[in-house]
């Protein structure tokens, strides 16, 4: 029992640290152009509120909320807002936008992508209460994704075949085609570890 509680707290802390790490990784070195400051603010708020939501997951809400004192009603409204708003999605958008504002640095973006996936998986484990073993069936798919991530970063690091926007677009189309092809093949890979269908 104590081990389970400790594991749940550990997953929550890991999610918070990964979120904070993503924000820092996408921010450094700090840029002061465009909407960078606003994106940074959004990213910090999103990660902090998401962490707070995870920390307050187990707080119960009374079934009957009539005739409650104002302070308790305020607290319940705060909890409802905290649980309803998609904080993590906002943080994702802000972090990616922060990364876009920097000049091209493919390996840096690839590390950020890996960290963001890890952050999402940690948040998912923390809010569902599942153990990390629940991710075992997805390992193959995650490995494929990591390979594609590396390919994307490698494509970004390749020098352009020729001047102009056409070459960059060509690389982009190639990356998209690779993702699509992987998406088509992947169901057969994923089905490999699914349980056999029940006998008719």
């Amino acid at each position, binding site marked *: 029992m104590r081990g389970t509680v400790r594991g749940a707290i550990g997953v929550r802390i890991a999610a918070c640290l990964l979120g904070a790490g993503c924000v820092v990784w996408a921010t450094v070195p700090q840029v002061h152009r465009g909407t960078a400051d606003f994106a940074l603010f959004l990213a910090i708020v999103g990660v902090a509120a998401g962490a707070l939501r995870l920390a307050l997951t187990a707080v119960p809400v009374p079934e009957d909320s009539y005739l409650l004192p104002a302070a308790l009603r305020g607290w319940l409204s705060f909890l409802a807002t905290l649980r309803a708003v*998609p904080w993590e999605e906002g943080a994702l958008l802000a972090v990616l936008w922060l990364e876009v504002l920097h000049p091209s640095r493919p390996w840096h973006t690839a590390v950020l992508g890996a960290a963001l*996936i890890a952050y999402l998986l940690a948040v998912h484990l923390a809010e569902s209460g599942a153990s990390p073993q629940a991710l075992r069936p997805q390992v193959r798919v995650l490995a494929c*994704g990591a390979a594609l991530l590396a390919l994307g970063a490698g494509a970004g690091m390749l020098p352009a075949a020729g001047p102009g926007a056409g070459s960059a677009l060509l690389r982009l189309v190639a990356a998209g085609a690779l993702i699509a092809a992987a998406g088509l093949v992947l*169901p057969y890979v994923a089905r490999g570890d699914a349980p056999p269908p029940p006998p008719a």
Partner: protein
Amino acid sequence: MSSMVPNDPGPRLPGTELELAWRSSRHARRLLTLGLFGVFVATLARRPEFAGVAAPALLLLAAGRVQRRPPRITVRARASSRRGFEGELMAVDVVVEGYDDGRVRWTLHPGREIAPVGAAAADGQAARFTFTPERWGRREIGTLDVVLRDRWRLAEGHATMTLPKLDCYPAPAEQRTKVVLRRLPNRLGEHPARVSGEGIEFFGVREYVPGDRQRSINWPASTRRGRLQVNTFAAERSQDVVLLADATSDVGQPGMSALDLALRGAAAAARAYTDARDRVGVITYQWGGASWLVPGLGRRQVYRIIDSMLASDAGWARGASFRRLPRAALPPGALVVVFSPLLDQRFVETLRDMRERGFTMLVVDVLNAEPPARPRIVDRMARRIWRMEQEAIRFSLRELGVPVVHWDGVESLDLPLAAYTRRPMAARR
């Protein structure tokens, strides 16, 4: 208390088929956000590394599409018992069929006056929820939310089912002693009557006549008198008891109101008298009408009596006045035990009428509330007048030969009835 309830679990229901509404989980929505925004940025900024960022999320979503998602499931719910008493611990077992992956989340939303004991949410293909009904009546246990998740937790299937209803009986008060009439009908029972018979309680001594058993000869008395004397024993008889529950007024705190006490007291009396092999019936008096149950014997009769009282509360009544009650419902010579707050003047008049018709009655006053105390002198005066009226009602009943005892609902019923359980109660005409 639970020993009173027969082992009567609810029937194995055929199962409820529930349509599942599948939708993306929060995890899937977050992955979709990352994937779409990554592709969008890659297209906009022409930087393929962002397509790589989007790739793992999109792959997970694409692979998750092949997971099995049944459109419907069958849920079986079974309560540990279809009926129970207030405050009794009960349980409902639920099990899902048609989905063997085991990622099922159950959440119980209890109905009114149902207090869950322990967690109201559980995981697994089968779950058990314990609860306590807090007040008598036909109660809905509540509703159950079922959430199924696919293997990768990318989609959630939601369904809601209504749990079966439950008959909650009022918790009987404690009563061990019985009020016994002095004149008992000529029917075999357990109360010693004032006539000699085949009982076990010593009644007297008489002269031996041929045919008497030798073992009943009283040798000391025979030696003193010089002739053979035999012991005689009191006959053992049963009586008819009619419980009269007044459901016209429900005043006082919920849980300790006059109606609560009337039902608990009547349940206790029903149990005590049926245990003594008496025939017990019930009449539930409501606004302008009454429902009744003919006196009967046995433990089942206790449940029939409580069912009858609860059904009366639910609103059905045969619309009969006491004058039109059948003879079987109110047999002549029966002991009538009344549970009432004596607030309804028509009911009091009915009691007077029954007394004048020769019934032996005993009123248990279950009024434990008063009008609210307010500082205005007019209110105080009204309250005093109200008290005097109540005293007058009780006094008038006592003058007619109807004993009135007060019961607060906390102590045993034996205490207020003690003065009438020590000796047989005379039927004054």
